[in-house]
């Protein structure tokens, strides 16, 4: 199930919230678990057992670690159990076919593909549960004693399929809080965030995204240079508003249920360097890699050479995490290169020249999205050539007329105008209610007549 859907909003959510609010506190985590399992199974019933297995394995691994605290060998055994299970699931479901395809093409074999659909959100929840066991191992959090509370953490539907990546330590206090978990103050904020998130996804992302889909249909090599740029701008806006809208809806829903999820996006397109961009884009993922890969590898404490090697590992993994294909690796390495160049010398220069810094950053991000989206490496290089050499093809005129206003709205909403508006008026009901109502009703209108409402994280 996805959030931007009439069924989710008017059936699932209304029933779940109603039941969740009226049951006594001791049953609330049970309600979350059951609701989340229905939410998860909705799209792919067969993967229901993975969710259960994931919960059980990490729950008992951590219990085992906690019980054997002090016995390094046994603790490591518990940790290994969780890490192998989670990474094993991820490898099996997400990467097996990629490896088979490549082995087949390099070695000339014909090993049959598994052709299994990717379990929804597997990249998100395997990271979440794995980090929990690691945190227990590191004594950062106590092991959860109640399996229902734990399953509520693992399955929690708002963040289950597209993040933010919520760590156990983010919500464990609330999970074990009975009285006072839910406050009207939080519900009040949650509603606002959910509606803004819905608007971001349905009104902006879907609206500009249709342009990129048209370009894909006509073939990336068929476009003229202006249309290539218009297209990549549209896609840059689509992926930002889709993803951050989704995260915002998740955070809003979390608040309605009484949890505080971490912020996932912070106006990434106003960045003045790629280094800054990655502090503002998909923050919970970058933090995860920092916390569980980069720092354990030694981070920046072992000299510049080692630091760059660590960055290479992190960015290779980040790229590959986004999808099992060569272009995602390329995308990760692309950012590794930019970040390394910035680290070594560019960052200081960028700080002194804000205008070229912004231009450079946006250009680099746009090229990055082309690498990210276009799986076929031939088509990708064709498209990049189109972007940087003035050449003819399908002209931009028609698309510019159709998408100009939507793109303009998207650009304005990518700036700090939105956060300024939020800070100024978030408690001004005379402004908030009409604005939210308009966004909500329009979003419903677009969902009822949904001609284009994609779910773009199916590869994650």
């Amino acid at each position, binding site marked *: 199930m996805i959030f931007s859907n009439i069924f989710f909003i008017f059936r699932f959510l209304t029933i779940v919230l109603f039941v969740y609010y009226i049951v006594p506190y001791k049953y609330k985590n049970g309600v979350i678990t059951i609701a989340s399992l229905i939410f998860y199974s909705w799209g792919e019933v067969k993967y229901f057992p993975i969710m259960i297995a994931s919960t059980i394995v990490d729950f008992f691994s951590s219990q085992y670690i906690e019980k054997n605290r002090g016995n390094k060998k046994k603790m490591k055994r518990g940790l290994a159990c969780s890490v192998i299970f989670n990474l094993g699931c991820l490898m099996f479901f997400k990467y097996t076919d990629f490896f088979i395809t490549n082995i087949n093409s390099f070695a000339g074999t014909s090993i049959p593909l598994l052709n299994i659909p990717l379990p929804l959100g597997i990249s998100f929840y395997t990271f979440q549960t794995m980090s929990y066991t690691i945190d227990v191992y590191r004594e950062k959090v106590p092991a959860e004693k109640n399996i229902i509370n734990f399953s509520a953490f693992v399955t929690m539907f708002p963040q289950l399929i597209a993040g933010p990546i919520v760590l156990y330590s983010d919500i464990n206090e609330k999970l074990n809080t009975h009285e006072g978990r839910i406050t009207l103050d939080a519900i009040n904020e949650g509603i606002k965030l959910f509606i803004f998130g819905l608007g971001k996804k349905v009104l902006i992302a879907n609206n500009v995204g249709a342009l990129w889909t048209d370009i894909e249909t006509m073939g990336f090599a068929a476009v003229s240079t202006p249309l290539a740029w218009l297209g990549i701008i549209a896609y840059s806006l689509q992926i930002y508003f889709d993803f951050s809208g989704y995260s915002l809806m998740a955070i809003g829903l979390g608040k309605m249920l009484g949890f505080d999820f971490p912020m996932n996006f912070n106006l990434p397109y106003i960045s003045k360097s790629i280094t800054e961009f990655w502090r503002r884009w998909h923050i919970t993922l970058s933090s995860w890699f920092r916390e569980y890969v980069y720092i354990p590898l030694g981070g920046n404490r072992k000299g510049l050479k080692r630091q760059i090697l660590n960055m290479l590992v992190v960015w290779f993994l980040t790229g590959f995490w986004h999808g099992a294909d060569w272009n995602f690796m390329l995308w990760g390495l692309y950012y590794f290169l930019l970040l390394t160049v910035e680290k070594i010398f560019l960052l200081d220069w960028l700080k002194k020249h804000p205008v070229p810094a912004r231009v450079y950053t946006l250009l680099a991000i746009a090229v990055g999205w082309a690498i990210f989206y276009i799986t076929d490496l031939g088509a990708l290089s064709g498209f990049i050539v189109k972007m940087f050499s003035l050449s003819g093809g399908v002209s931009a005129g*028609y698309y510019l007329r159709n998408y100009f206003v939507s793109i303009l709205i998207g650009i304005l909403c990518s700036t700090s105008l939105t956060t300024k508006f939020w800070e100024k008026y978030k408690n001004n009901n005379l402004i908030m209610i009409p604005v939210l109502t308009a966004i909500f009703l329009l979003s419903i209108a677009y969902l009822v007549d949904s*001609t284009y409402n994609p779910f773009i994280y199916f590869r994650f």
Partner: protein
Amino acid sequence: MKKLIENLKKYPVVIFFGVLLYTLAIMDLFSPVQERSELENRSLQTFPKFSWEQLFNNEYTPKIEDFTEDHFIKRDTWISLKSISESLLGKKENNGVVYGEDGYLFTKFVTTDYTQMKKNVGYINKFMERHSDRKVSVLLAPTAPGVMTDKVLNGSPVIDTDYILDYVTENIDSSVLVDVRQVLSQHTDEYIYYRTDHHWTTLGAFYAYSEYMETVGRDAIEKDNLEFVEVENFLGTHYSKSKNYDVKADVLSYIESDAQIDINGEINSIYEKEKLDVRDKYAMFLRGNPGKATIKGNGTGKIMILKDSYANCFVPFMIDSYEQIDIYDMRYITMGLDQFIEAENYDEILFLYNCETFLSDKDLMKINMFN
């Protein structure tokens, strides 16, 4: 409880959206279920019957979602709201339909794949080799964007009918091709294509008919002798997709006729006038799209027409000139055509398709099959 209500007063957003969400949800739950959408001219998703098989194939839950969406309370109002918003955003398209000048709607073609079209030309050539002793003609009607060029906004992604017709002209025996481009282009200031539908109007069909009659050396009816009956408020297939709030409805017209059509032994008027009261008014011509039907005329000679729905308002003009008109819709034909041709000994054979159908039609291959 009292404390809660007291507290709630401090949160008008919570009250407002709580009430809005639950009111809509409950009203929607109790709103009556409709089987068809008149606006969209389609059957709506029915409530799916549960089966484990469907559930495990992931076919059950999407139907539940479609059902909720299709029957959402005041569906048509939401659709109009979206349309108004799209218009404010300057969008000139919706759901695969491109908007033109003066309320014209066209099918959107982001790219055009000509492979099937080229195969279809090959099928017709092969057919003609077998029937070179008969008068075979091919009339491919350009769709609106190819003729009403000044109604197409600059750069719109619409079909290039000239490419198709030029290709056909080059690759088909020129004696059989009836090119109606010129005659239609001479009348672009007249009402020859519907704005909201993918068909030509009865008047447009008339000009093409005149051209055909001239090609086969027959006399066509004079336009002045025809009386067109008009039916207002026709909203066609393109509008069913675009659902634009500012639609300009069409006027459908037909010429009165007491001719009868024989569909599987059932004989009725060639016009199903009950259709004039429903949304899909164009379906009145030849009673929709029968697989195979016969019309007895008042003239001489027998003609076989292999056709799509563009022929439906074209055929009535021919009734006075032919003794028998047999129409075949290749979608429903599962027997060899040659035996019909032998048995009926047709004097003329006409392929009548519009360019958009001809571009992607996969049933034309059957004209050489089953023999």
